[in-house]
């Protein structure tokens, strides 16, 4: 099974961590500033005797919170991004200057810009944030600036910086809890206030949760086994050791046990709690892994089943295909046989017609003509009016009979088609048709005089023109018909076009395909037998055109018509 490329799983919704952090940061800072304004000690330092949050720090928090708030969207709007950078830059400048003051023993007069009067009782540097605070601010605003930049790497960097700030603040908190002063402040200067540390933790978390789809946070918040584990273990890994350790340390300080015991107690409880956590987590992972494997097994089985089915179906299809192919071949053979049969039928029919036509004309016709002459010569010799009258009637009758025989022979197959060629035969046919049907015919034959067409082509052309003209008389109600037979380079073009009422050519083509419209179908088959094609075009009210193209070899230079032809043909 092909491996799917790893898709980043959708992160778990983080909740409004950033918004809450920013809001609390502002609220705490405002409370502290109120405390300074109204001189309320609890608001300044929370615990009596402990370091205070100086006004500059509170100001820094307000600006940092504002920057965090402005950067909550990804990507942030251009104006918000600028404003956030400005806020962060001010805080960064302040913390850099503060650190500079500590390092070089300077007083840059920035510590007491606010609440000058109230900042008397503070320790060595009244109004100056502690070095921890300044460092924390530096890390936090660096994280914010990094967050304001575009790109995944910048955001990963921001998370690392925020985590560092968080760590420093956490150390301060641990210091408060364990009463280790160094961790939150240097006695000689001043310390990080408890609520300062808490606010740093809040804002640090705010930065971390700003882009949960990036960097480490994408793992923590991801809907994967790793994310799940991180979310379960991380809070416990932070809180449990701190709480346990704190309690144990307090017990040692109260003299309940010595340091070694406290240490071993701490190690033991850590081992137990962490092991318990890991076991619980391992069980969850184990369960989900087992489930995944089962699902994979199911999937593989389904896949195998599918392959088997596809194989069966393919085999079946190829069997059907082979059968179909052989059927097609059979069909082609049958079609060829049918065409062959039709050709033979048509040839035999024409041959028979030719024979009967000749027979009628040469024998019956001649006899009748002779008879007419006999009667004619007999008439003067007849005596009596009655006999003369009867003879006249007989002559008339014989004449009519001769006429009919002649017409019948011509209808069956005109001798002119063999003796004189297609053009003469068609000319005559068109003329007679026009006479009988009362429709004007304009016959044009071109390129037919120099050399005869192959006999089967001549017969075919004659018959389809006949059929087309019959159709015109039956259906078209035309007043004029054009008949064109032109020998062109490589083919004979046959067109019969009338100006009659026409028909819906597309509907006719459909019924033709369905096997109806036998007249047109018959013509088409007839033309196909000599390798040609027949089509038609018509529109209601716009007349109709029947057109056939039959391939013929281009005329040779040899003069065949008419002498040689007659020598061959009439020598019967």
């Amino acid at each position: 099974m092909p491996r799917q490329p790893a898709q980043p799983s959708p992160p778990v919704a983080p909740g409004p961590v950033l918004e809450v952090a920013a809001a609390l940061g502002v609220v705490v800072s405002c409370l502290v500033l109120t405390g300074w304004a109204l001189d309320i000690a609890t608001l300044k330092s929370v615990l009596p005797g402990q370091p205070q949050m100086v006004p500059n720090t509170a100001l820094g928090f307000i600006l940092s919170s504002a920057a965090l708030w402005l950067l909550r969207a990804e990507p942030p709007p251009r104006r918000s991004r600028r404003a956030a950078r400005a806020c962060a830059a001010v805080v960064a400048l302040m913390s850099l200057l503060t650190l500079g003051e500590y390092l070089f023993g300077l007083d840059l007069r920035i510590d007491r810009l606010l609440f000058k009067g109230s900042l008397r009782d503070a320790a060595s540097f009244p109004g100056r944030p502690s070095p921890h605070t300044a460092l924390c601010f530096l890390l936090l605003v660096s994280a914010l600036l990094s967050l304001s930049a575009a790109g995944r790497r910048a955001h990963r960097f921001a998370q690392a910086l925020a985590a560092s700030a968080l760590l420093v603040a956490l150390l301060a908190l641990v210091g408060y809890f364990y009463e280790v002063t160094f961790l939150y402040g240097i006695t000689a200067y001043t310390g990080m206030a408890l609520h300062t540390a808490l606010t740093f933790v809040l804002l640090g978390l705010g930065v971390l949760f700003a882009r949960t789809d990036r960097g480490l946070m994408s793992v923590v918040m991801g809907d994967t086994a790793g994310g799940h584990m991180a979310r379960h273990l991380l809070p416990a890994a932070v809180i449990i050791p701190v709480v346990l350790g704190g309690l144990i340390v307090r017990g040692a300080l109260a003299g309940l046990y010595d340091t070694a015991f406290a240490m071993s107690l701490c190690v033991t409880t850590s081992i137990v709690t962490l092991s318990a956590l890991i076991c619980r987590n391992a069980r969850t992972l184990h369960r989900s892994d087992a489930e995944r494997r089962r699902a994979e097994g199911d999937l593989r089985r389904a896949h195998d089943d599918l392959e088997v089915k596809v194989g069966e179906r393919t085999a079946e299809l190829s069997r059907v295909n082979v059968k179909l192919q052989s059927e097609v071949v059979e069909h082609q053979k049958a079609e060829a046989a049918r065409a062959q049969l039709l050709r033979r039928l048509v040839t035999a029919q024409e041959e028979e017609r030719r024979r009967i036509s000749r027979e009628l004309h040469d024998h019956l016709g001649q006899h009748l003509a002779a008879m007419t002459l006999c009667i004619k010569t007999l008439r003067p010799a007849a005596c009596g009016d009655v006999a003369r009258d009867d003879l006249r009637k007989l002559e008339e009758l014989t004449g009519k009979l001769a006429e009919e025989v002649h017409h019948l022979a011509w209808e069956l197959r005109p001798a002119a088609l063999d003796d004189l060629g297609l053009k003469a035969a068609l000319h005559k046919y068109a003329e007679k048709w026009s006479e009988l049907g009362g429709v004007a015919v304009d016959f044009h034959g071109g390129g037919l005089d120099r050399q005869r067409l192959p006999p089967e082509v001549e017969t075919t052309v004659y018959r389809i023109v006949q059929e087309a003209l019959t159709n015109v008389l039956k259906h078209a109600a035309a007043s004029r018909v054009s008949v064109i037979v032109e020998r062109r380079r490589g083919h004979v073009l046959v067109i019969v076009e009338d100006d009659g009422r026409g028909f819906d050519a597309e509907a006719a083509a459909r019924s033709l395909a369905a096997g109806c419209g036998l007249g047109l179908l018959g013509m088409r088959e007839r033309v196909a037998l000599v390798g040609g094609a027949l089509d038609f075009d018509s529109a209601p009210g716009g007349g109709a055109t029947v057109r056939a193209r039959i391939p013929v070899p281009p005329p040779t230079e040899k003069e065949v018509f008419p002498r040689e032809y007659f020598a061959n043909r009439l020598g019967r």
Partner: protein
Amino acid sequence: MNTLRIVLADDHVMMREGLKSLVNAQSDMEVVGEAGDGLDALTKARALQADVVVMDISMPGLNGIEATGQLKACGLKSKVLVLTAYDDNGYLRQLLEAGASGYVLKKAAADELVKAIRVVAAGGVFLDPALAGKVVDGFVGRKKMRGALQGSALSEREEEVMRLVAWGYTNKEVAGYLNISVKTVETHKTNLMEKLDLNGRSDIVRYALRRGWLSEV
């Protein structure tokens, strides 16, 4: 007045009998010989110094057209009068080309033959009235076409339509080729036919032939 010497050439004995009695009934003519085929007719005409040979077309051996051609080629003075059942212009044309002087249809033999023999013997040409009409029609048709060629003032599009129609395209195909509607093609066709006084597609093809438009197909 000399009696006209007639040779009858027909492969049907009965027909010959009938003709013989018809001709011999005339005081000024006499059947001097009969032939059952073309070659026989040639020989008899020469040997008997026939004035008129009444010739059938379909005969065994040498047919009527061949026999007429050879008779004329030999330089014989005998006139040839064709008597046949075929009323096709094609036969008429070929026989006239071969040197026949007259053409009579068998159905009219009883009434026309005697008259025809006299006309032909006198050096004239006799055509059966039923065929003469068609010959005249042919001449008139050709004359009309000449008029059409002169008065041509077609638009460019009309000429395009006309060429395509002459080449054998249907209205629908012309419409597709020129990217116009079938109705428009029909309108162009009607207009150009009116302008050139043409009637239908056959006339268009003939016109195109005369203009030399079809030399490339």
